[in-house]
């Protein structure tokens, strides 16, 4: 077990190092000069040359890579040339917003997905099964940025049910930063106004983002429910005359939950990435927008920071999913 864990961690670090190398060289061969991008087209050439020199961009690429690794070893991710701040500080500021969004999204997606999955499992093969699956697939089939705008238009603009863009109303001041998560911070500060406001702001983007996880979760729920419902003990339970509801929730769902939980873990990683587009539409100050603008302005240090961070989260999420699966399912052995 421990050997397995160590092996997995080593492999994960290797993968992350690989990601690091690929990203570094990929972002540096992109035609285009980040300094020229940041300083705009009206800046004088000598200013650009001076800044390139200051940032070390005039050195050979392998030398830049060695410098980068050296700084990384000291816990320094470099400075973003776009925000003029250490990348680490940027990540600390933007990552919690994405975590908050993705977590709420997965909760919404999982809750709806479970319901849809159970309904279509219980009513398998009927029109109800087909209808629920059909409608849940519609959400998955719309481009996120378009769905986001439509949702904003209906629920914010027309119905006025939810607040619009951002994490908080602009004139509400953020509770003191402890965890970085607004929900948690406002709970800690006991600031109910901020808490309610933040929750309201979360719902629409989380709904949009969660719609993508919904389908996958519904699918696996249906599958494992069907499998469980075919098992002998469920048949026994039925024959004992228990109500259908008890059979489904007490007996079947409990046992079907295993694979569902692991799939939720997998989707969680995917949501962090899906946030890129959602965040733009909802002006959500998260990692996705930071990554997009970093790529648009070719902000090397920021690109590196974001990809390495996300790669780490991905690898860890995968590891946890595998571990959880192993613990929950004794049939699986860690080699």
């Amino acid at each position, binding site marked *: 077990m421990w050997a397995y864990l160590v092996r997995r961690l080593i492999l994960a670090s290797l993968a*992350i190092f690989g990601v690091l190398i690929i990203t570094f060289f990929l972002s540096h061969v992109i035609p285009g000069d980040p300094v020229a991008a940041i300083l705009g087209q009206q800046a004088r050439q000598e200013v650009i040359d001076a800044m390139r020199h200051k940032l070390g961009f005039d050195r050979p690429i392998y030398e830049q890579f060695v410098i980068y690794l050296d700084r990384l070893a000291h816990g320094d991710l470099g400075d973003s040339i776009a925000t003029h701040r250490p990348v680490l500080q940027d990540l600390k500021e933007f990552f919690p917003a994405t975590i908050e969004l993705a977590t709420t999204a997965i909760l919404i997606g999982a809750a709806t997905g479970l319901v849809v999955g159970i309904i279509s499992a219980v009513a398998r093969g009927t029109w109800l099964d087909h209808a629920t699956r059909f409608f849940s697939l519609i959400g998955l*089939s719309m*481009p996120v940025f378009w769905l986001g705008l439509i949702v904003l238009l209906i629920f914010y603009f027309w119905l006025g049910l939810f607040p619009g863009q951002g994490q908080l109303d602009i004139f509400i001041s953020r509770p003191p930063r402890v965890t970085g998560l607004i929900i948690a911070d406002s709970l800690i500060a006991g600031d109910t106004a901020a808490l309610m406001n933040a929750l309201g702001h979360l719902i629409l983007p989380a709904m949009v983002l969660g719609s993508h996880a919904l389908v996958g979760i519904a699918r696996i729920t249906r599958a494992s429910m069907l499998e469980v419902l075919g098992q002998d003990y469920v048949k026994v339970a039925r024959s004992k005359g228990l109500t259908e509801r008890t059979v489904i929730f007490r007996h079947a769902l409990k046992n079907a939950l295993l694979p569902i939980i692991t799939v939720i873990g997998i989707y969680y990683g*995917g949501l962090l990435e899906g946030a*890129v587009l959602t965040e733009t539409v909802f002006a959500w100050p998260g990692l996705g927008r930071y990554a997009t603008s970093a790529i648009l302005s070719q902000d090397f240090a920021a690109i590196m920071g974001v990809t390495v961070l996300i790669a780490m989260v991905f690898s860890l999420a995968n590891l946890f999913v595998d571990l959880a699966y192993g613990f929950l399912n004794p049939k699986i052995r860690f080699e």
Partner: protein
Amino acid sequence: MASSTPRSASNSPTGAARSGGEIARAERARTWRLVWRTLRNPLSLAGLTLIGLLIVIAFIAPAVAPYDPLKTDTLSRLRAPSAEHAFGTDQLGRDILSRVLYGARISLRIALLTASIALAIGAPLGIVSGYFRGRMDDLLMRITDMFMAFPRLILAMAIAAALRPTLENVVIAISLAAWPAYARLARSVTLGIREENYIEAARALGTSTGRILFRHILPGVISPVTIQVSLDMGGILLTAAGLGFIGFGAQPPTPEWGLMISEGRNYIPGQWWVSTFPGLAISLVVLGFNLLGDGIRDILDPRLRGSGR
């Protein structure tokens, strides 16, 4: 966006030694059974219909489109849907119906190109890795680990940024981000086939390795990987549209649906038709792929079969 790789083991045929011809025949028979079941499942039938519609429209677009999709008319910009322009006109006065019809050709091209590139990279690597095992296998699996630790959209964004922003390059970017999943699948299928008696028999008879790979392994690998690609196709089309939204996609004045939604979003809600019709088009096609995918999953995984009560 994220798709789990189904460990589809249903494709490893069992039984005694068989000749290449027999495998091919068995393969054909199974394909036909699959097609038959697909047609009987209402979800996948609906999906197939939508995809069929896409293909038909892609072919007949030039014949049925009422206008030239690129012809601008700035005097009749942003006209609401009418008898003259069924879907209205866009910000340059172009006919949206014609652009949507022509857009089908582009989506079809994206779909086909991505599928072939991902297959062309993933399948051979997976087969070689699964057949020869050893060092090469280890190395390949580490490489796929690395690629799969990469957020796909961000990787595609970075690759798309490195290349000239054209539609073809978007396809390449997505394929490069997507192949590892197919390589893994091809590998696991190969691992199964490789242990079959008939492969050993072929080896004993002195059949060359190349021939074994081509005649015996490849046919078995192609169909599960193709199915997986088609399951992912909806996500691929959406990723392409998403790249267009951020500015890495098709170039104007190409009537690509993602680009059209992206341009039309600036006219919501006043001139809703500019983004709505391409939006509906792409949603329907993606829905088609998703429905088909769901249906195929049902069929391949007997536990999921709907009519088994």
